């Protein structure tokens, strides 16, 4: 009997320690379905705040367990019985004061990542505010094109991303897509 606040990532997603990547993925989608807004299964039990808190923990669990290396180091931490590793540590510092950063004509994921880091936002901040799944945010920042969502979603994610970083959404989206398109066309 463990409170969800104290559950490890496996307990949280209700999977065994030796779950396959596919099982992790299924459990994650199901968990998101369960704890989304207005979900039938949770509405009479959990408050909105609790549901959001669980939702965020699920994103966190998925972020760690869906990546081979991150999962491996998490497993080592679990085996040692120590506290959770700092793979997902929210940053406590306040963002720097507004400085306008010019956005070039064409930008890639690492530009976005450095922009985010300059503003001192962690991925966790971004996930909890934009509600974009962590795997898409990572894909966007690391230019993992094959993991991208459909372009219509990509556009709206980039807009949210820009809004949160307080840069012009239209410019950021246009510049990012320009690079994305040129890269994907080259590959074809």
């Amino acid at each position: 009997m463990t409170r969800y606040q104290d559950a490890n990532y496996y307990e949280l997603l209700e999977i065994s320690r030796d779950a396959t990547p596919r099982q992790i993925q299924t459990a994650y989608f199901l968990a998101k379905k369960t704890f989304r807004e207005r979900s039938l299964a949770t509405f009479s039990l959990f408050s909105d705040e609790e549901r959001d808190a669980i939702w965020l923990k699920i994103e966190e669990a998925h972020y760690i367990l869906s990546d081979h290396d991150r999962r491996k180091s998490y497993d080592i931490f679990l085996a040692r019985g120590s506290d959770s590793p700092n793979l997902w540590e929210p940053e406590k510092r306040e963002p720097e004061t507004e400085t306008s950063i010019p956005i070039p004509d064409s930008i890639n994921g690492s530009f976005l990542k450095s922009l985010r880091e300059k503003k001192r936002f962690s991925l966790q901040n971004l996930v909890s505010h934009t509600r974009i799944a962590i795997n898409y945010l990572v894909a966007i920042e690391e230019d993992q094109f094959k993991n991208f969502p459909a372009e219509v979603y990509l556009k709206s994610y980039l807009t949210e991303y820009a809004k949160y970083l307080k840069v012009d959404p239209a410019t950021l989206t246009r510049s990012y897509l320009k690079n994305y398109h040129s890269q994907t066309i080259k590959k074809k």
Partner: protein
Amino acid sequence: MSSVDILKGKLKAQNREIWAIGGGKGGTGKTFLSGNLAISLTRLGKKVILIDADLGCANLHTCLGISVKGATLSDFIRGKVKSIHDVLIETQIPNLSLISGAQDFLEIANPKYREKMRLIRQIQELDFEYIILDLGAGTSFNILDFFLISDVGILTVLPEPTSIENVYRFIKSSFYRRFKKVVKDPAIKTVITQAMDQKNDLGIRTPFDLIEQVEKIDLEIGKKLKEQIFNFKPRIIVNQVRSKDDIALGFSMRSSCSKYFGIQIEYIGYVEYDDSVWKATKLSRPLMLEYPYSVSARGINNISHNLLKKEQLTFDFLVNG
């Protein structure tokens, strides 16, 4: 019956299992599922008795297409007949017996404690492999007690907010009642009673909070309650499923219960929404006999297989199924 058969019957009697089917809300298919699960079991060669424990409004017999002429459960509760065997009917379905519910006597819906205990004792002594109790709607003490004496407690839920809410309430009420039965300390009993009220002054919202409070009073009893929670495994069936999302609801409820109540419910299956169900109901014929090859009949067969094998649905099922 040959002596070998009698002996077999005796041996099996020790392995008898009581299944209780409840769910809080009316109209979620408790009677429908009790009747058809029982028939599904007889098809697998099991000896089954169905008991209509819906004392207020019994109609399991109608669901099976049987008209009740002889004595019913109300005669037994009132003491008109001595043994529960006197109200037992052999149905035309091989291996299936029935104890029909109260027909007329209104007070029977709330039998006295002594009457209830006598009933429970005699049910537990019945010589059948499977004893299936069809419970009424609601979360009254009588219904909860029948649920708690069962070996397998089954809850039926429809993919609707009202039904889901009632199932959660049923789960909560039944294990809080179970808590109260194992606790003797009046101070702790009071805490449990207060905890049952969602807006209590102690700030207890979930069983986690309750156990924490109890542990402050008595660590040992807290441990005992944790054991109770651990051993409490209600099963759920999602009825009238119309989409993949409806199927997934069972998993979502399982997950919610484990995160909120700290209890592990088991998702043993679902029954698809299907016209053959109301067609059979209109004819007062059990679905398993009238439309044995319908999708809903298949769902019921899957559920009885899962119950017999003590299995439940897994996530993988969603990917492949």
